[in-house]
């Protein structure tokens, strides 16, 4: 017998039982690159575009440094061309029946299935990530996403009646995970009838390949266009006519810069920022399983970022020992090796991790590194950092991949405080075998996603997103669809940019108020105070502003609120928040209904106040009546919140919770002084928020009249109303770091300022861009949009098993 394949090394391996390389051939990825002559352009309108005179960037294997291809860098006209293609195809695509779009998405899913090997080898080759993750997780997930959203498209006319597609969507992606992040966003966007222009970082060919696969379906070539270029083209993309929304996924500081750059540009901005995650390990946990959770969260190629690990003090030593033992068994290496846990993600990612570790060390932290890792430069070993001083800069900074920063805590209460003591709010897991404790922590965490006794599970049916500086956009689930929809009949977003708006001085100075002439009536009316903390207070500035009626006569004086009053109001709102959140929906509904009844009793006063401002008697009566109805309606809606999602392959439910935003600031419009005030207040309260409002500037008195009832009915601090110069108050609110969301209905300039200033804590903002709104129409004054904006979603995963 001829020994055709013998192992000279078999002997040695027999003794050592070491692992060997399991190389995956990437010949098909190279062959695909060859079809483009190793020179990738943009894929627009179903064709490859390779415009002349563009600079190009090499696409390199992050591990060997080998040049794989060169990628063009887009310029403004390339972006314009892509948007034009998307806009042209929008008309046709968005008017197709949902069932038809569903079919098209299913065909794309099949197309991906046919070329999955090409997809996973290409993605692993260029990103350096372990092929096993791409092959066993990313590619199947991409197909599931298409399937799931095809079903959503199919039922769209029924399930999403009253909503219409936004239009052209601009999508800006980060380098390492651009394929999967793209799929999470294009699927819902295409499903509901939007068309997309994707801006990928240079040297990211996988999205281009997906676009080519979509293009080869023949029909609707322009619905998915991919251009490669630097992130600095983001504002250019946003400013193209027709772009209605920009979805950005990437680093927090880049998101902040984009938020500022896009103020006043018109399109909405959806941010998904940062990649850090959190793991809470209680003493009652299955520690070994939790250690696997840490591996999934930070030391594998499924995790985009690093991990903050909070360990209960009583199991600290035991956990650290297990973690270190487990780290020793991690294998790093070339991503195309099938037996590798962690690949390498290029020099930038490595340097980031290196810098963090060095800095942590210099601040006195302990760093433990282990695992079999090739020693040469692109690789960075799994690292476990402990004893980091609480006040050191590293504690504040985002933890990069593949780092874990461990710190101890004593009690569950302390764990929650430490976990929430961060500007980020992405995802977290809780490990505890005590059900009550686990749920208490899961509900208390300010995060977009919480897993109980698991980490990193994803599913197309479950919304993924965040809060605080992690951005407040969503992908997946019902929330992912609303990102690309607007209530039918809403006008399209147009730029309302005012070039000469000075952000430094907008609303900075308050015009001084002087006596406004003869007071009428027997005894002079006392000035209305500020309604803060449940009672009327004198403003910090100790001055009042006159309010004139429609005849130009003095109607009364209201308080001139300022920065200190806003501060006080926000503090009062924060103090009231825990009590209000803890109220049952029934109790919240009862209070809203009680307020409605009080409004009814006060009808004659309110009507006369409105009449003095030139509102006809009939209209004034209708306004009061409608306001009462709004309070009742939101009181009734408060009962129906949250739902259970069923996920394929997971035993146990996923809860989609609707949680309050926190302190919500509302700058009410000038028009409909009572109705708009109530229409905005009611959904905010119904969803458990505490509120700071600035009423109509010209006619604040009806709102202040309502405050007299609120003073007796509502807990102090739940609603706070501050009158004064609207621009000044808007400035104070928009720049306040501890306000969780801001709704602004006022001037175009004010809207632009609010968008710009919100970059500070990245609070979600809703601005009217200077356009009036039909508050008396149910669609605009009480539509589901208000409910969606008044709450934030949290996905809570509850895997079960005995």
């Amino acid at each position, binding site marked *: *017998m*001829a*020994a*055709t*394949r*013998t*192992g*000279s*090394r*078999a*002997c*040695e*391996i*027999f003794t*050592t*039982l*070491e*692992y*060997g390389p*399991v190389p995956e051939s990437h010949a098909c990825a190279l062959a695909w690159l060859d079809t483009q002559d190793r020179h990738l352009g943009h894929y627009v309108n179903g064709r490859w575009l390779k415009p002349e005179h563009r600079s190009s960037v090499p696409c390199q294997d992050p591990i060997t440094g080998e040049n794989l291809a060169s990628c063009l860098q887009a310029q403004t006209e390339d972006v314009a061309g892509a948007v034009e293609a998307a806009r042209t195809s929008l008309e046709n695509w968005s008017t197709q029946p949902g069932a038809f779009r569903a079919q098209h998405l299913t065909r794309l899913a099949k197309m991906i299935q046919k070329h999955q090997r090409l997809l996973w080898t290409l993605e692993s080759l260029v990103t350096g990530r372990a092929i*096993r993750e791409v092959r*066993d997780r990313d590619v199947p997930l991409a197909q599931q996403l298409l399937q799931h959203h095809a079903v959503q498209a199919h039922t769209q006319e029924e399930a999403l009646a009253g909503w219409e597609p936004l239009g052209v969507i601009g999508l800006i992606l980060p380098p390492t995970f651009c394929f999967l992040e793209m799929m999470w966003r294009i699927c819902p966007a295409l499903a509901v009838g939007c068309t997309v222009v994707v801006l990928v970082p240079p040297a990211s060919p996988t999205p281009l390949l997906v676009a080519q696969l979509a293009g080869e379906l023949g029909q609707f070539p322009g619905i998915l266009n991919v251009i490669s270029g630097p992130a600095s083209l983001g504002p250019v993309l946003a400013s193209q006519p027709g772009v209605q929304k920009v979805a950005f996924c990437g680093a927090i500081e880049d998101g902040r810069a984009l938020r500022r750059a896009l103020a006043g540009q018109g399109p909405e901005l959806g941010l998904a920022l940062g990649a850090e995650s959190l793991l809470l390990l209680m003493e*009652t*946990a*299955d*520690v*070994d*399983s*939790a250690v*696997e*959770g840490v591996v999934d969260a930070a030391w594998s190629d499924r995790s985009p970022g690093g991990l903050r690990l909070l360990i209960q003090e009583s199991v600290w030593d035991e956990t650290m*020992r297990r973690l270190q033992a487990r780290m020793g*068994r991690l294998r790093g290496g070339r991503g195309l090796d*099938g*037996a590798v*846990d962690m690949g390498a993600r290029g020099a930038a990612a490595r340097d980031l991790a290196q810098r963090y570790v060095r800095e942590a060390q210099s601040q006195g932290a302990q760093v433990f590194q282990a695992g079999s890792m090739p020693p040469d430069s692109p690789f960075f070993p799994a690292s476990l950092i402990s004893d980091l001083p609480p006040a050191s800069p590293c504690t504040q900074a985002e933890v990069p991949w593949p780092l874990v920063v461990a710190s101890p805590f004593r009690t569950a209460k302390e764990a929650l405080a430490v976990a929430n003591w961060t500007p980020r709010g992405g995802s977290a897991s809780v*490990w505890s*075998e005590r059900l009550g404790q686990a749920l208490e922590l899961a509900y208390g965490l300010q995060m977009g996603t919480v897993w109980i*006794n*698991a980490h990193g599970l994803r599913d197309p049916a479950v919304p993924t997103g965040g809060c605080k500086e992690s951005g407040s956009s969503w992908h997946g689930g019902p929330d992912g669809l609303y990102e690309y929809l607007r209530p039918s009949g809403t006008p399209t977003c147009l730029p309302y940019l005012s070039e000469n708006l000075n952000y430094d001085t907008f609303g900075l100075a308050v015009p001084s108020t002087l006596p406004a002439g003869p007071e009428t009536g027997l005894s002079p009316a006392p000035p209305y105070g500020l309604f803060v903390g449940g009672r009327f207070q004198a403003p910090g500035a100790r001055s009042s502003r006159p309010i004139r009626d429609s005849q130009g006569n003095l109607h009364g004086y209201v308080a001139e609120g300022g920065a200190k009053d806003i501060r006080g109001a926000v503090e009062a709102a924060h103090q009231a928040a825990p009590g209000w959140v803890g109220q049952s929906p029934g109790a919240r509904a009862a209070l809203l209904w009680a307020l409605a009844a009080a409004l009814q009793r006060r009808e004659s006063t309110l009507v006369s106040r409105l009449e003095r401002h030139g509102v006809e008697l009939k209209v004034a009566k209708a306004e009061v009546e409608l306001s009462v109805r709004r309070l009742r309606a939101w009181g009734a809606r408060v009962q129906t919140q949250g739902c259970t999602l069923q996920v394929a392959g997971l*035993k*146990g439910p996923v809860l989609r919770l609707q949680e309050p935003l926190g302190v919500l600031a509302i700058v009410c419009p000038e028009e409909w002084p009572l109705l708009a005030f109530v229409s905005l207040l009611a959904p905010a309260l119904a969803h458990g928020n505490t509120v700071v409002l600035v009423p109509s500037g010209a006619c604040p008195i009806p709102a202040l009249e309502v405050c007299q009832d609120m003073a007796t009915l509502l807990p102090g601090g739940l609603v706070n109303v501050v009158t004064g110069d609207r621009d000044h108050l808007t400035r104070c609110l928009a720049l306040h770091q501890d306000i969780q969301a801001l709704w602004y209905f006022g001037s175009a300039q004010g809207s632009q300022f609010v968008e710009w200033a919100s970059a500070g804590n990245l609070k979600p903002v809703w601005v009217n861009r200077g356009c009036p709104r039909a508050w008396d129409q149910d669609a605009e004054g009480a539509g589901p949009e208000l409910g969606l904006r008044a709450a934030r979603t949290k996905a809570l995963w509850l*895997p*079960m*098993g*005995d």
Partner: protein
Amino acid sequence: MLAHQRGTELDLSWISKIQVNQPAVLRRAEQIQARRPVKKEWQAAWLLKAVTFIDLTTLSGDDTSSNIQRLCYKAKYPIREDLLKALNMHDKGITTAAVCVYPARVCDAVKALKAAGCDIPVASVATGFPAGQTHLKTRLEEIRLAVEDGASEVDVVINRTLVLTGQWEGSDFIKTSTGKETVNATFPVAIVMLRAIRDFFWKTGNKVGFKPAGGIRSAKDSLAWLSLIKEELGDEWLKPELFRIGASTLLADIERQIYHHVTGRYAAYHDLPMS
């Protein structure tokens, strides 16, 4: 042949502190099977190693001296000589770890192995296998007789009545099951047992052995079991003193895989000797 456990005071508080999260263990079990593929020369070497862990087993009511004899011969020569030669492994003394039979067949096995001129230990199942529901007196007598007949290892069925009521027993070696249950050696169960072995080692310094049995039929399965041990306990457990695989048909599949590795062809059943 095994050094006896020094033994420790039974401390039930250890057991009461143990937490196992089933869905998380299931996920780990799924991952571990996909994360460590072994190919080419590595696969061949690992498979040969797996052979040395096998307790080559026959536990049938109709076992007779003739099929026991065949089994023992296979234990001594588990892989065709020319295949081993091609791998340059023919002089490594590769045999299975033991043969495992019913107590009444221990004599036959000892005789057959002696005739084949080798010192492979004979393991006997005992104590009312597989249910263990017999009196303590007969159980002890059964062990004594098996040892008398020449068995050097005894797989004892523990009294599960006691375990289920919280009265645990100690052991040198733990086995996933008798192999005769509806569910036998599964990864999730093994993960929990291996973690217990490691914790016990960390606490006392004593190494307890591990033997999955039942349902391990393919070469691929055996590789997954090896990598499971390597990942959860480390290389120090990958030796016959601490790890065994109870199996009857596994060896045939391993031999076929080795044949394929050496020749590049898939073997017909009759290309390889029967066991």
